[in-house]
């Protein structure tokens, strides 16, 4: 039994994940929301599937990527159902309670008392839109740092409502009834109206009614074009120009892929000159009409046509959006998060008994988790065509990934469950952090001009974040040393020595990467702003890590600290690193302040306090440590200490 336990656990875990991942085939007579979710659109400068638009919009409006509405969309795939209603059937969508408001002062603004309810519908806010807009505009003028909880909440609500209203007017005017017929009538009357307009300009008699009809529609589509959030209409490949398009596409793929997408409104205005309506606009109109009429087979049939059109005309975009749809559905980071927790618990349990079997179980689970984590990381790189770290969210993903790999290498060498426990803990915590950083919408956002350079993103940013990974890993090792030493009897001399070796090695690794990363950042700054060092908060944070590593290593080389001192200093390294990673962003100054997170502040302070508490615990006299109390009583007279310092600088 013991021998097979690791394999059984691995197979059960892999099986349950695979079961999660199996696609559910929609019944033939149901709306094919999954297929609709793969349709490419351009939002935020990036071509993405509608499914991503739905999830990110819900994240902003609802705080979650999925809905649980009674009598409405619920569960997996609910985001697309909701978006389809918003795009095509606004009156129904208006009644869904999706807007999250938890601030009592915001609710008080409308005369509502705070209760258990925290989700509200657009229809409920409709009478207060003007008020919300004014209040939101006031707090929009403030810097994020200066906003009160109420001001942040009202601004979020205003942004959510604005986003919702733009979504409703992305594919068709929200009040459209028979949109396909409306478009047919529009395009038919254009030539007549054009003639009337010419006549009018020439001063001849003209057909006023014809001109007025079209003028009204033109105004309607101008409004539509101003409101649109989604650019749904891809560029048409013109015959003869394809060679040119290809040549430019090869040189800068994102630029051309995003080049000439238009909103539906825009495209309709263009069609006045072209004399015909873009095929995608027509398909969308028919699909929307079918959806409102609850005609499932018509909806699915035209969805097929549109899908085929995209596959033929926009093969690159289609491939990418299909993959992104898959990526969204698999949720690799959520899956690996669960596995990391399990592995951590197994590794900890291995110190209490059944050690080999549990340790190996943890190791196998970690390999599975790492594989899924890696798949997620590389998928993001493929989708974005960028090195792994481009924003705070991706830095969390990458820090976890790097730390897990190094920890697994340690586990492979030392085979004592310590590396496995570290891998599980850090993998889980960093992915949780990433999960909470995703709240602002698209985590694959386009990069500001100055960051638009893959060389520096691939070198400076990767080196710095690898340094963070190593710092946190070293800190975790030190925590294990302290906790096992003080609270359990499991820290014998051998374990203590190997923990000390691991910690020391990882600190060296962290020093190397932090230093190289920091200097590369300086060189990037010298290349793009003309100064190597500008005392920007993020730069300062990075150099703090380097200095702390240098102090730790010199103190150890000089013999000022031994095992326990190394552990205490390494735990303080956690504080320094978290300040550098998050703390400096909260100052709201400097070139790197790319994400202010008021909500994260208490967590950061809590983390730092916990680290200081651990340092205090570690500073207790060794006689009070459970491991050494027993040891000193019996077999081990001397304190844990290093062999003489190898060298001094």
């Amino acid at each position, binding site marked *: 039994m013991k021998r097979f336990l690791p394999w059984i656990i691995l197979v059960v875990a892999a099986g349950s994940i695979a079961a999660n991942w199996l696609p559910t085939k929609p019944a033939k007579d149901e709306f094919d929301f999954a297929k609709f979710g793969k349709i490419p659109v*351009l*939002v*935020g*400068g*990036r071509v993405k599937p509608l499914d991503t638009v739905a999830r990110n919009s819900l994240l902003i409006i609802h705080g979650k990527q999925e809905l649980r509405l009674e009598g409405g969309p619920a569960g997996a795939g609910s985001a697309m159902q909701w978006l389809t209603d918003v795009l095509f059937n606004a009156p129904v969508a208006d009644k869904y309670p999706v807007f999250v408001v938890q601030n009592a002062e915001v609710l008080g603004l409308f005369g509502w008392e705070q209760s258990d309810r925290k989700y509200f519908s657009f229809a409920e806010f409709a009478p207060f839109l003007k008020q919300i807009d004014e209040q939101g505009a006031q707090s929009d003028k403030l810097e994020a740092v200066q906003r009160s909880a109420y001001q942040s909440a009202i601004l979020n609500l205003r942004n959510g409502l604005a986003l919702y209203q733009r979504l409703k007017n992305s594919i068709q005017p929200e009040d459209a009834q028979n949109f396909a017929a409306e478009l047919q009538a529009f395009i038919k009357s254009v030539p007549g109206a054009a003639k009337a307009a010419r006549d009018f300009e020439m001063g001849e008699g003209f057909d006023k009614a014809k001109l007025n009809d079209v003028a009204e529609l033109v105004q309607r589509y101008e409004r539509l074009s101003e409101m649109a959030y989604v*650019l749904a209409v891809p560029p048409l490949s013109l015959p003869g120009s394809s060679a040119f398009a290809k040549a430019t596409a090869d040189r800068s793929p994102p*630029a051309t892929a*995003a*080049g000439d*997408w238009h*909103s539906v409104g825009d495209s309709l205005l263009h069609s006045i000159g072209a004399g015909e309506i873009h095929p995608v606009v027509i398909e969308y109109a028919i699909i929307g009409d079918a959806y409102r009429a609850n005609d499932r087979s018509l909806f699915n049939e035209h969805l097929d046509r549109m899908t085929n059109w995209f596959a033929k005309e926009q093969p690159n975009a289609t491939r990418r959006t299909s993959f992104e749809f898959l990526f969204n559905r698999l949720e690799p980071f959520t899956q690996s998060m669960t596995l990391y927790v399990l592995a951590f618990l197994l590794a900890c349990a291995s110190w209490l008994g059944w050690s080999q079997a549990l340790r190996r179980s943890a190791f196998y689970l970690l390999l599975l988790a790492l594989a899924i984590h890696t798949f997620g990381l590389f998928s993001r790189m493929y989708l974005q065509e960028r090195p792994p770290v481009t924003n705070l969210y991706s830095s969390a993903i990458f820090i976890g990934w790097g730390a897990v790999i190094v920890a697994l290498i340690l586990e492979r*060498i030392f085979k004592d469950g310590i590396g496995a426990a570290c891998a599980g803990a850090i993998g889980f915590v960093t992915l949780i952090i990433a999960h909470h950083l995703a709240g602002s919408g698209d985590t694959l956002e*386009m*990069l*500001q*001009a*100055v960051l*638009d*350079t893959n060389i*520096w993103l691939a070198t400076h940013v990767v080196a710095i974040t690898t340094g963070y990974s190593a710092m946190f890993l070293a800190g975790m090792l030190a925590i294990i040393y302290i906790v096992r030493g003080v609270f359990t009897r499991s820290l014998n001399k051998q374990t203590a020595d190997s923990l000390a*070796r691991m910690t020391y*090695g990882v600190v*060296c*690794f962290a*020093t*190397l990467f932090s*230093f*190289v990363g920091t*200097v*590369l950042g*300086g*060189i*990037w700054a*010298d*290349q*793009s*702003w*003309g*100064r*190597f*060092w*500008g*005392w920007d*908060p993020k730069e*300062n*944070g990075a150099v*703090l890590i380097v*200095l702390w590593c240098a*102090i730790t290593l*010199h103190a150890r*080389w*000089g013999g000022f600290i031994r095992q326990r001192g190394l552990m205490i200093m390494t735990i303080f390294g956690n504080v320094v690193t978290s300040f550098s990673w998050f703390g400096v962003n909260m*100052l*709201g*100054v*400097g070139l790197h302040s790319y994400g202010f997170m008021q909500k994260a502040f208490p967590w950061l302070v809590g983390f730092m306090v916990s680290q200081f508490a651990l340092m205090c615990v570690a500073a207790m006299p060794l006689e009070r440590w459970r491991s050494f109390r027993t040891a000193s009583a019996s077999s081990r007279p001397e304190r844990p200490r290093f062999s003489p310092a*190898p*060298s*001094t*600088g």
Partner: protein
Amino acid sequence: MLRKIVNLITSLKLTIICLAAGMALIFAGTLAQVHLGIHEAQQRYFQSFFVWWPPEGRGFKIPIFPGGHLIGAVLLINLIAAHAKRFRWTWRKLGIHLTHAGLIIMLAGGLFTDLFAVESHMRLARGDTKNYSEDMGRTELAVIDTSDNDLDQVTAIPDTVLRHNREIDHSSLPFRIVVRNFYQNSRLKMLSEAGEGARPIANQGPGATIAVEPAPRATGADERDVPSAAIEILPKDGGSLGTWLVSDGLGAPQTFSCGGRTWMITLRPARYYKPYSVTLQKFTHEKYAGTEIPKNFSSKVTLMDSERSVNRDVLIYMNHPLRYRGETFYQAGFQPDDSATILQVVHNPSFIAPYVACVIVAAGLLVQFGFHLVGFSRQRRSAIA
């Protein structure tokens, strides 16, 4: 005694103390940026020998912490001294020597940059040609002799002189300049809008109708001071030409006559003239489709240098500066309505130091930690065997 001092300055303890003090200083200096702004915090904490308390204008001040220059200098001395005393060539110490040599280059280069690098801006509207860049932190009082049709004779008086010297007497000028008031930062208002009790500080030119209010130093990254001064022109042959308001906030220079010649005066950002000129052909500001996220900024300029018979077009864009005759032009900003580009012009003779240092230190760390790793795995192998 001497031995004690040598021991102290070569000790590892001193290294650790310096590094720890550096950490504390950087931490405090970073937090201070929230209230002081990057520029001011940098001056007080990092580009100084001491951090003073209280900062300014209380009549007394005491040093409360070593500043960046002091810590850096002590660290540099400590490093060099320790190596000079203990240097022994062995392969085992190659990594340590390399690392520290690189750090010495880096620290020295940093000090050198602080002392000798000059940063300035060149703002160009489309079609503009300039042969000078402007300092964003310093101003000068330019006194221009315009009597010669072909050539203007400029006498520039730096703001540091204006701030401290009450009277300026220069041999090339037929008049003395007396500084009546000087404001490092100020707000100008038309007298009619300034409210009751506002009085002009000048009696000549437009200054006679303008009220000047002193303002606190600018702290934001995008803000800058608007210095103003009231100066009286006293011809050397007696009499007075009245008091004039000069300010960075006033547009055109003001004109007066003295000694049979026509003069213009203006307070403007300090200028660095160059032996070549730059003309803006076109400024482009691209955004990602459907967003306000900037995708790229680029300036197409023409570089003209008759000395070296250079006349060519150059594209300056993000992460791709122009390097010419020891100066580097970066795309730094733009006017909000895209009507003008702002190029940052940097002259830094020691820009190469960090590049060299980085390579040496990285190599040193790799060698050093590589030795540890090899030693460690040997130990393990023998332990297992």
